[in-house]
């Protein structure tokens, strides 16, 4: 995983009440089954992926917002970004 992730241009996203849906851009109807939903924590991580914030920077944002350890925050960032790897470079 890129230590400073940035977003590709292969998706569309919608934010509703602090949660996010990511809809992949496809070129075959058969590939269209999956959309990705992010809860509020996942949405904060995703919204701070900008090609400037490192994995540690993203973990720090979560660590400062929630009552968890830095390692737990970093693990959450990794899990979220792994799930969204198709939309990241």
């Amino acid at each position, binding site marked *: 995983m890129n230590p400073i992730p940035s977003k590709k241009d292969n998706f569309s996203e*919608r934010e*509703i009440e602090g949660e996010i849906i990511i*809809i992949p*851009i496809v*070129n*075959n*109807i*058969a590939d269209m089954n999956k959309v990705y939903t992010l809860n509020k924590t996942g949405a904060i991580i995703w919204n701070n992926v900008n090609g400037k914030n490192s994995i540690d920077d993203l973990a720090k944002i979560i660590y400062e917002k929630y009552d968890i350890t830095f390692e737990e925050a970093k693990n959450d960032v990794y899990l979220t970004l792994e799930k969204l790897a198709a939309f990241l470079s």
Partner: protein
Amino acid sequence: MISRLLCLPAKRILPVNRGGILGSMLFCIAGFSILLKNFSGNIPKCFNSFIKDYKSIPDFILSNSDNVSGKPSGRYLISGTGTTDLGAIKDSHWEIFQKDETILHLLIFPGTSNKERPEMICELDFQKNIGFYKLNTPNLFPLSYPFANILYYYLAVYNQSLLLHSSCIKYKDKVMLFTAPSGTGKTTISKIFKSMGAELINDDMHFIRYQDNNFYVHNIPVYETDKPKKEKIDYLFRIYQGKENKLIQLNGINALNAIMSNCIRQDYSKTQINLLYTTGEKLIKNVPIYKLAFQKGKSVIPFIEDKLLI
């Protein structure tokens, strides 16, 4: 999978000069007027009640033309395969290319593997709302499956509408839509309600349209006896078959996912995705969305009455 449309070929030829335009016929489907020009051929019976007199400017004009090229032109956008378990409808495969900014080039092939000779070729311009088609198969009705579904999809995208896999009934003056993937129970639940006196709007697919500050359901031609219907939506259910009846109201992202995962979508364009999701977000603010697990049998009716209608 694209929805199944049971439009059986007609045995007789309907007159094609209604409305005063030679060789032309106007169809009104879900409130969209579609003018079919230069057409002479068999009209599937399911369209009979959707033929209207020509009075105003059509929403879309579709003309027969020999000048439509059978070779793909422009940038490949998306393709799909329409398969069905209904014997009356043959399988098909279609591909869409973007010829220039607003013009789409659509090729429809018979079967799912034959890509050599399209049976229908179209150029569609959704800025000017006109299209040209050429048929390579005799007696093919242009507005049949799968072309109709593709045309309906674009009409939906650009007109604050959705094309939803769903069955719909009107029971005790309340209009209820049941949405789910194929084989989950849409037809089953609508039959249960119908057996208790409900009016069936349709049991396969509907237009959901935002009109006059409300959301309405419109049927589309499927069965021979179909007539155009438009009803204001009271409830929308994402259904499952379960061991017990269970009802949970959905909000926010869960409500939106329940709807959008059962809409016809193509998802090759951010613009189209955003237009459809904007309509979906408006829908979940205007119509209560529920997750409904239902038992086989009639117990779901008193269950719904108790929860929502009393």
